[in-house]
Structure formats: C-alpha cells, structure tokens
C-alpha cells in the first residue's frame, strides 16, 4: 500500500513537471516570436513613408525609397506565378486523375515532395547555370524562373490533394453524359475546386514573395526603375539583404521598412488564403 502511494506520488510529480515544461516552452516560443514581430513593427514603421513607394533606392545619405524594388518584386512574382500555375496545375491534375497510381506517378510525387523543401539557394545556383551564365547577364527573367521552381511543388501538391477530395460522383455524372474525362476535368472538377486551388496559389505566392537566396545570383539588383526583365532587376529581398548589411543608418532603416512590407504581405496573403479555404469548407 505504501509502495503504491509512493509510486502514485511519483507519477503525479512527473506529470506536473511535464505540464509545467509544456506551458513554459510554449510561453517561451510565443515570446520569442512576438519579439520578432515587435521589433519588425517598431523598426519598420519608422522607415515607412510615401517616399518608400514613390522613389527608387537611393545612394547613401540621399532621399529615396524602394519603389523600383517593389515593382521589380511584383513583376517577377507575377511572372513566376503564371509559369508555376500552368505547370503546377497540369502536373497536379495528372497526378490526381491520370497517372497518380502508377509507379511513375509515385516517383513524380516523391520528387515533388523533395523539391517542396529543397534548399532555395540550390535552385538559384541551377538557374544561374542554365539562364545567367550562358547569356552572360543577370536578368529578372532568370529570377522569375527560379521563383517559379519554388512555387510549382506547392501548387502540384495542393492541386492533387484538392482534386482527390472532389466527389467521385461528379466525375461519373460527367462521364455518364458522354463527356471525355479531359472535358470533365476542365469544366467540372477544376470549377468545383476553384476556391481551394486559389488557396494553393496564394500559399505558393506567399512562399516565393519573401525568398531571397534564389534571387541573389539570378535577378541580382538594379539601382534604377525598370520593367525590362531581360536585365538585372531590383527586388525587395535582395535590396533588404544589401541594405541591412551596409554601414549606413538610412539604408538600414529602408531595409527594416522593406522587411516589414514583405512580412506584412506574406501574413496578409496567408490569412486571405485561410479565409478562402474556410469559406470553401462552409459551402
């Protein structure tokens, strides 16, 4: 009897220690992450003003903003998303509707999963080797291709998951009316899944909009406003990287403002994606 109460006491003590540990580390984690957001907000807000959106990146000490970098980033991200959506939607559809159960489909799915978390700097190296070195020029186009390579796996994954969730009766109903499977996919399945597909696209966009490493040696940077993606193109992440590591206070302020812009965009896009997904679940 005494032994079993002692044992019970020990078990209870372990349990209390375990619970305290869980609560403490959760608090610690939330504090650390809140601290990051807090410094981002306090240091970034100070640098945000109209100049940031209307003027190009300055020389140290002179007046300027991030307009060229913002526009360059948007142009590259949009181009990357167009490429990634085309390839990703078709590849995801193939995995879900055609070859997903074959051995080849298994290989493709595995490679996609690996690409999903592959180091982004390797994608940068690869695009440098195939699009920058042969043409002897950094270009926004190369940057967009690198970003697209990072977005494709996300879109493939969500497209496949979403299409597999669509009711089998939808497909059967379409095929029973005499429509070929490809017609059913394009006019019925894609349409019924469109808001989930949108969620996937938004998540992919959030993923690439803050990527820095693959742009360092593909898009490089450009001090001037330009929409010509055949040449080096200014973009927010690389400008932030260069300015943050510089010795000038005004450059660092701009870097924080840029970081706040990027993080804000990513968070906003993610939140919208979640809302879209929830609407879908409700309807």
């Amino acid at each position: 009897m005494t032994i079993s109460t002692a044992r019970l006491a020990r078990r209870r003590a372990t349990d209390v220690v375990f619970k305290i540990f869980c609560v403490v580390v959760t608090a610690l984690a939330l504090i650390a992450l809140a601290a990051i957001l807090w410094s981002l907000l306090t240091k970034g807000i100070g640098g945000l003003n109209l100049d940031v959106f209307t003027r190009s990146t300055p020389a140290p000490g002179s007046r300027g903003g991030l307009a060229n970098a913002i526009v360059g980033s948007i142009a590259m991200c949009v181009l990357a998303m167009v490429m990634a959506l085309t390839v990703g939607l078709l590849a995801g559809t193939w995995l879900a509707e055609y070859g997903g159960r074959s051995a080849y489909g298994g290989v493709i799915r595995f490679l996609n999963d690996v690409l999903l978390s592959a180091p982004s700097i390797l994608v940068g190296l690869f695009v440098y080797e195939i699009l920058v070195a042969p043409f002897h020029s950094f270009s926004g186009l190369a940057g967009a291709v690198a970003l697209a390579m990072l977005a494709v796996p996300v879109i493939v994954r969500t497209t496949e998951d979403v299409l597999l969730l669509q009711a089998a009766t939808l497909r059967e109903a379409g095929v029973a009316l005499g429509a070929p499977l490809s017609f059913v996919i394009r006019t019925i399945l894609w349409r019924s899944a469109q808001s989930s597909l949108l969620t996937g696209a938004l998540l992919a966009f959030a993923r690439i909009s803050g990527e820095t490493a693959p742009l360092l040696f593909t898009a490089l940077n450009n001090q001037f406003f330009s929409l010509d993606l055949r040449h080096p193109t200014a973009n927010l992440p690389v400008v932030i990287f260069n300015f943050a590591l510089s010795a000038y206070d005004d450059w660092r302020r701009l870097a924080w403002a840029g970081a706040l812009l990027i993080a804000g965009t990513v968070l906003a896009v993610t939140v919208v994606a979640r809302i879209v997904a929830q609407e879908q679940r409700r309807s």
Partner: protein
Amino acid sequence: MRRPRPRGALVALVFEWVCCGAATLLLVALGWLLVSLVVGGWPALHKFGFGFLTTATWNPVTEVYGAAGPIVGTLVTAALALIISLPIAGGVAFFLTELCPAPLRRPIGTAVELLAGIPSIVYGMWGLFVFAPLFSQYVQLPMMTAAAPDSLLEKLTTGIPNGSGILSASIILAIMILPFMAATLRELLLTVPAAVRESAYGLGATTAEVVMSVTLPYVRTGAIGAVMLGLGRALGETMAVTFIIGNSHRFPKSLFDSGSTIASTIANEFTEASTPMHTAALVALGLVLFVITFIVLGLARLMLRNQVAKA
C-alpha cells in the same frame, strides 16, 4: 468501316499528354539541377578530389579550396538547432493538443502556423540587430568570464563575444524551424483517434503518460519524418544564417567561434567569384549540400508517407 474517332477524343488524348508532360517537367528539373551542379562543380572536384571534402583551406587568392569548414559548419549548426528546437516544438505541440484551454487552441495554433511562413530574411535581420547584442551581453560575456582556465567550458567559449558565431546561428535557426516543426507535430498528434487517447486516460494514466506512452508512439514514424523535415530546412537555410554566423572559412573551434555554412558561403561569394575555379568550387559546395539534403528530405518524406498511409 470503322467509325472515325470523335474530335473530343483527340482533345482528351492531347490533354492527358500535356498533363503528363507537365509532371515529367518536375523530373527533368530535378535531374537537370543535379547534372548542372555536377558539371559546374567538376573542375573543382577533379582538381582537389576527395580532399575537397576533408581539408579546411579555402583560399581564393592561391586557388586552393577545401570545403571541410562550411560542411562541418552546416552539420553542426543544423544539429544544434534541432537539439534546441525539438523539445520546445514538442512542448508546444503537446500543450496545444492536451493542455490548452479550448478557446485558446485555435488562436495559438493559427499563430504558430502563420509564423512558419515568415520569410527567413526577417529572422536573419532580427538575429543580427536585436538578438546578437543581447546574446553578447547576457550570454557570451558571462559564460566566458565564468569559464575556468583550461576547462572544457573555456574551450567551448573561446572567440570574440560580438554576438555572432556558431551558437548564435544555431539559436536563430532553431527559432526559425520551431513554428514549422510545432505545426507539423500538432497536426500529426491530432490524427490520433480520440478513442485511443481516451482509453488511456480511462485506465488512469496521467497526461504525461498518455503523451509519452500512447499518442507519441502512435505517430512515431511521422514525428521522426517531421523532425527530419525540420533538419532539412536547417541544413539548407541561407538568409537566417548568413547574417549572423560570422562568415569565416576556418574550421570552427568553439561555440562562439565564427564559421560558415555551405549556403552562407555560396550566398556571400558567388557573385564576387572572380576565377572559374572559385565558381566551380562554390558549385561543388552546392552539390554537397544537394546530396546531404536530398538524403535527409527523402528519408523524411518516406517516413511521413508511411504514417499517413497508416492513419
């Protein structure tokens, strides 16, 4: 006479082939990536042979390249980040699935998932400008003064106490992979059937016992997969590390010593590489990183898939 094929059948066939082509593009991209890294890095690999992996001289002036410093830096920072991050991520996941009051569950869970999406450059900047000064003042200096001469602690803490270095980089990496691992672990724990958990409680098990002997073993394979996915991220992370590791190619001698990782070396030097051999050496470094992460990520995915198949 055979009936001619309807036009729609041709469209259907073309559509299927286009889809299959898009899927094949993934295979082509990954294969081409590997080939281009091998081809680009070949001059360095050919010249230095196996010594490329085992020597630590990295000298662009004399054109001698040995990658042991960055390779060890990559492995050490990723391992340390995992050691720091794993218990915390586990604690957060257990808290969210077992202990957290119901009204807080969704907000905290959502916050953790949102934070997993913050770009790594933000973590890097925070590390350099906010974390490093505090770390230098409250951790590095006290530890260095507390270390007795010739003790193990002294060996581990030699270096310049400026807040950057191997340990700082590991901590920033740990903070960065924490939300990701916590969110994945939480999702896995939520797949444990309620009946399994409730029967354990019904037998009189405490919360600690339920987690440690019932729910965690239930998702064991998947949990290992999630951890390795986190490790894969830490291995390949560029921006969070580049800011704070100190960027020297020496073999790191202590926790506070400055070092470099494969990714940070490539990020710092690639656009400034002046000779073909320097570029080749950096691409060869990329190849090493590719091989390491491919193995880790491949294993992680296989484990996660088995878990999903079981659930």
